[in-house]
């Protein structure tokens, strides 16, 4: 137990129901007033291979997994070595496993964890319709001390569609698991007292949160092509959009989806697509069209391991380069990054607002570890960000779509507005939209498109800045959770740090960054890439102190709070 949280890993064969048990445990913890996070990992088999669920539960909001696990429940040993890097165990860990499943794999034994073989299979066999995963849920109910009735309620809700017999067997399994724990010598691993829930909490994944943020921001048209790990955004959006009068079109490919949303947005409907690295790469040409034609669109990129098809089911932050720089020509656009599961909603909603306000494509970066994990969070505050486009009035005369305004933003006519007729163009153009290859027009339009992004006031949302220590830790996205936790650990040791987690990556905010860095003499950059993409980007745009270190590692293993903390400690 690290501080006030309990970390639990559950592993087993795909068919064993690991994910169901884990989800029920998370739900039960939430019902009991706890916060929590749940991530998952699976092997290459499409179905039926090995799978593992990682939970971290606690009495305060949880933004990342811990360095290690307090408890591992191994429903069987199927290819469990595949998760060796992910399931970090040590002498203080407890591993509950089946007494009849044979010897634990070498890596588990070598960890020094306390192995507790229990008669799992045997118990299940003796329960009519008994299932391993319900037994596992019972073990964890017993270990964590979650109230039996709460767990029972969650099980009832989850299994009631499947009939009374299944439900009864499930509840019997839970009770049997609790009994096994009670009868054993296993050291308990109790969750503290649950904090009073001031307001209803949510159980939400990053992908769902991103979808919700988009709809809240005004998105009503989505076109997309399925891709891991972005598909759940679409799966949530399709039925949800329908309910609020919008629509999702499944396109034939990413070239179609990006261009469909450009068409939808040209028609006045705030529009979005979501994808991952390979799909984003295919969209770059047309994101450039949105830049040149000043058509607002939002593109969510749920990053996975790269390059190429890479590691589709694992997390990495290595699409930073393409998001920032992947357009041909001088093509100013906005890039944002969500820094937690809950923040996927904030960042997505803000991004819709920015796209519409500035008539520009916004690329929103999240990643697999945010998108496909679930968290128990406080209901997010209502945000005032709504996409609002400046438009000419009906019957306008002498309308010029690309007029050179002081702000750089020109009123955008929407089909249906008489007098606003114009041709949107990806060719360089005069203020009217008429194609022009002239030097003056090119310069004026390039200036205008850059100016509108530079002059806009992004307010405090550009970054989270916390603390004012002399060591600044600059990070982004899903690394923010581990960094924040490392800073807290450092603070507990009396080491003052400051965290700068960027939500707005482009355009760069030189002044704000300089201000955030004032008084800091050292910088630690934390990111999850192989080639230090974030560090290079910071160098290119910001003045950094000479005293600088970079903690950068590719996926698939997440950056752990302990790693960051070690860096801080070693440097203090």
């Amino acid at each position, binding site marked *: 137990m690290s501080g006030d949280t309990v970390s639990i890993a559950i592993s087993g064969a795909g068919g064993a129901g690991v994910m169901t048990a884990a989800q029920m445990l998370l739900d039960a913890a939430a019902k009991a007033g706890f916060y929590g996070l749940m991530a998952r990992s699976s092997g290459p088999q499409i179905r039926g291979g090995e799978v593992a669920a990682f939970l971290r539960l606690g009495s305060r909001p949880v933004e990342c997994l811990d360095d290690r696990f307090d408890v591992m429940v191994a429903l069987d040993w199927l290819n469990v070595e595949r998760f060796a890097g992910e399931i970090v165990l040590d002498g203080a860990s407890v591993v509950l496993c089946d007494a009849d499943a044979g010897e634990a794999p070498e890596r588990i034994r070598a960890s020094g964890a306390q192995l507790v073989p229990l008669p799992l299979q045997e118990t299940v066999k003796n329960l009519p319709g008994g299932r391993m995963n319900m037994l596992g849920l019972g073990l964890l109910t017993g270990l964590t001390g979650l109230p039996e009735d709460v767990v029972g309620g969650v099980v009832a809700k989850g299994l009631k569609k499947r009939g009374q017999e299944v439900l009864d067997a499930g509840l019997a399994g839970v009770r049997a698991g609790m009994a096994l724990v009670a009868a054993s010598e296993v050291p308990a691993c109790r969750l503290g007292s649950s904090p009073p829930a001031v307001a209803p909490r949510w159980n939400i994944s990053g992908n769902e949160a991103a979808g919700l943020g988009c709809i809240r921001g005004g998105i009503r048209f989505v076109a997309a092509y399925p891709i891991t790990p972005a598909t759940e955004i679409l799966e949530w959006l399709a039925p949800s959009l329908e309910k*609020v009068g919008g629509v999702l079109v499944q396109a034939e490919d990413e070239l179609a989806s990006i261009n469909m949303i450009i068409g939808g947005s040209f028609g006045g*409907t705030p529009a979005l697509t979501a994808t991952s690295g390979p799909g984003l790469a295919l969209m770059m040409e047309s994101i450039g069209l949105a830049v040149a034609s000043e058509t607002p669109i939002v593109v969510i990129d749920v990053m996975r391991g790269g390059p190429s098809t890479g590691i589709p089911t694992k997390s990495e932050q290595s699409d930073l380069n393409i998001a920032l720089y992947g357009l041909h020509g001088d093509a100013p656009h906005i890039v944002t990054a969500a820094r937690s599961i809950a923040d996927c909603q904030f960042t997505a909603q803000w991004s819709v607002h920015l796209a519409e306000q500035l008539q520009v494509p916004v690329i929103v970066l999240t990643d697999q570890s945010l998108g496909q994990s679930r968290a128990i969070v406080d209901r997010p505050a209502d945000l005032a960000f709504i996409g609002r486009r400046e438009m000419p009035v009906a019957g306008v005369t002498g309308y010029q779509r690309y007029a050179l305004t002081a702000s750089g933003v020109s009123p955008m006519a929407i089909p249906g507005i008489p007098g606003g007729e114009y041709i949107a163009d990806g060719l360089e153009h005069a203020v009217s939209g008429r194609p022009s290859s002239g030097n003056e027009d090119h310069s004026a339009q390039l200036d205008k498109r850059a100016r509108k992004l530079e002059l806009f006031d992004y307010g405090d949302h550009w970054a989270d800045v916390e603390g004012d220590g002399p060591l600044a830790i600059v990070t982004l996205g899903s690394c923010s959770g581990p960094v924040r936790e490392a800073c807290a650990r450092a603070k507990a040791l009396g080491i003052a740090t400051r965290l700068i987690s960027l939500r707005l990556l482009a355009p760069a905010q030189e002044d704000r960054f300089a201000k955030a860095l004032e008084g800091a003499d050292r910088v630690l950059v934390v990111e999850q890439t192989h080639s230090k993409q974030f560090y290079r980007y910071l160098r290119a745009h910001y003045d950094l102190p000479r005293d600088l270190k970079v903690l950068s590692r590719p996926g698939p293993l997440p950056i752990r709070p302990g790693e960051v903390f070690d860096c801080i400690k070693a440097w203090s």
Partner: protein
Amino acid sequence: MTALAQTPALTAAAYKSDYRPVWCPGCGHYSVLSSLTKALAELGLQRENVAVISGIGCSSRIPAYTSVYGFHSVHGRALPVATGLKVARPDLTVVVAGGDGDGYSIGGNHFLHACRRNVDLTYLVMDNQVYGMTKGQASPTTPADWDRSKLTPHGTGVSPFHPLAVALAAGANFIARCYAGDPNGTARVITEAVRHPGFSMVQILSQCVTYQPSQKEWKTTVRKADVTTTRDAVRAARWLMADDGLSTGVLYIGHRPIYRPELQASCSVDDLESGFVV
């Protein structure tokens, strides 16, 4: 939009902009522009309720020469842009226009899927069997032995693409061929195509006088098809497989359902949140 009766009808000329086309003198695309504006006048549409969407190519320059809304997008992507627009704004009349390169080469996948999806769009392919804009390379519809491009010095060696046969096989429901040399006939077909619900495929033979000068002969070789419009796909297929590509007319009208999602809200955004509450 509801006050249709009150707004005065516009002449074809009123649908033209005052920009001078970049086209070569004699290019077939001029006639297509005329036919399109005639059709819009005939349909009595208000300018603000029409959008012409194109890709890149000489032909794809056409939106700028109209006075309606439009999008000159990127090479090959006119159909998805138009699809997004029409699905999000079903109240608009959306015409898609472009070349054979734009539509059948780089845009071939969207062509297939637009035929299949059957969104209410009218697609005008100004087919000159060549890439005009990039100075004369072979397109999918170029004859296999055409050897006037340095990229294919002995001809392409590939049988030309048969756009209408593919459209039919892909599920298109309105299939027509016109000739730029007959602007009134073309205007009539465009009018019919716009009125047809769902995706309408209109191939327009539109000569490139600069890189395919032999297309001037179309004046004498193009003729009306010796069949009347069929509603039978098997018959249309048989006819198209044997067709020489020079007969004009509305060749097929089918009856597949169109794709037009409802855009009716049934709950508020706040209601969506309930699914997340613990």
